[in-house]
């Protein structure tokens, strides 16, 4: 069972501001989903190596050659708050 404080911690980790109501609903839904996910415990997997890729491709590398860049204008075109040649963000307060 995950508790309210766990939900708050996870929300902080992933930068979501959730209202009290959302936190509560999230807690209930996560618990019901996790209850289902916990059925995985029943599967015997001792000595079974994990699969992180569906294909068995390895050693894909590129040559160290320069490719085209975006123009500065294109790089900044989608910026919500461009400032001259840069991306602007509000003041940073360390956690």
């Amino acid at each position, binding site marked *: 069972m995950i508790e309210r404080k766990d939900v708050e911690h996870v929300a902080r980790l992933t930068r979501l501001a959730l209202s009290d109501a959302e936190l509560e609903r*999230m807690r209930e839904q996560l618990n019901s989903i*996790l209850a289902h996910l916990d059925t995985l415990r029943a599967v015997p997997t001792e000595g*079974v190596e994990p699969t992180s890729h569906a294909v068995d491709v390895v050693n894909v590398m590129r040559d160290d050659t320069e490719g085209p860049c*975006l123009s500065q204008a294109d790089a900044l075109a989608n910026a919500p708050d461009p400032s001259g040649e840069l991306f602007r963000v*509000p003041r940073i*307060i360390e956690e």
Partner: protein
Amino acid sequence: MYRPIHELTDAYRRGDLTPTAVAEDYLARIGKLDGKVGAYLTVVHDQALAAARESELRWRAGSPRGPLDGAPIAVKDVLCTAGVRTTCGSKMLERFVPPFDATTVERLRAAGAVILGKTNLDEFAMGSSTEHSAYHPTRNPWDLTRVPGGSSGGSAAAVAGGLAAGAYGSDTGGSIRQPAAFCGVVGMKPTYGRVSRYGLVALASSLDQIGPFAQDVTDAALLLGAVAGHDPRDATSIEAPVPDYAAELTKGVAGLTLGLPDEYFPDGMDLDVERAVRQGIEVLKGLGAKIERVSLPTTPHALAAYYVILPAEASSNLARYDGVKYGLRVAGRDLIDMESRTRSAGFGAEVKRRIMLGTYVLSAGYYDAYYGKAQSVRTLVRREFAAAFAKVDLIVAPTTPNVPFKHGEKQDPLSMYLNDVFTIPGNLSGIPGLSVPCGFSAAGLPIGLQLLGRPLDEARVLRAAYAYEQATSWRSRRPELT
């Protein structure tokens, strides 16, 4: 006018039709009917006509670029299109205009295809009903009160409703095959790595794969062939030659062994679906295929493994949407406040739920219990398919356990997730899968037959689907849209 692409191009060749006339007709039909269906998020009217005119010149000069030249198609709005907004069905990317084309889009343009627009989806491809688009739901052309399936519901509905001759979607847990089944069209998820993911906005990187929606199997073969093949920009794309899928179609199923997995016919599945699928299997038998029972015992656990892996990867892939570089920004007191407000306002409920779930299962102390465990279960699923394919050439099963449901019918997340039980194992193991129409429910709703093949064996999957399609007449039925 609403015929498969291969028939359109035959007509172009004969001069009975022109790409421009066809594009204009599709655009007019979209203008007239898409208000009801809601298949599109963006229609690129002028671009489409320009592309159609160029195609027309090539056909006139007798030098078309290939079987897709002048084909009016639609692409799911998770595929980046240079200069055309790519929203992923989310408020987060409402104004995001990519400076580049996805490899798939690039190859379609090179093939002379006429892109009509970007189709609707569940936000960031998270869903099985296309009800959870931040813009509007998409409706099933067979019954507008029902869902088209998802997450690629817009592409499926567009092809079913005659709003595009063919379309592309992405399939992470069934997002092509399930809506194809729900909309009575052909939909295929190729082998993971067969089609480049470059320019596909990621949901779960190790599961996502791009594939076609088509009016028939021949078109599916052509649409897949046009975009398949290695791409140096995608490190997970497979370096293997692309066969001429269309040329392989007519080889038939005589002599092929089809595996029938017990686990894909659980108690309590929709009776119409079971009946239609079993009849379909009889048809294949009649065509000379051998049917053999196979067992995939881990199947019941695939769903749980999937709902660990998918949210984990999604929570990571969606971390970049923070209001700094592109997309939505909601002002805040400071950086963290801005980012948190932006993400809370930009993401819908289901996306937030999966981000939270994924962040939780990856967080300190839970990795082994969830992610690590799920990846091991994934190995078991792969092994079981490998063992089965040592005995059989293809696996035949239902695409979905049920028929299209009504809008708003599935409120509880878990019951929604259950839509994908038969398609998820194909993504976990990376094998190719296809859904072909195999009948209708008593209420006249489409049902899909799923064919699964060995890695990179798309040709055989398509060939069996073609044999089945030619032996049946389901594709002659079309929804009435007026």
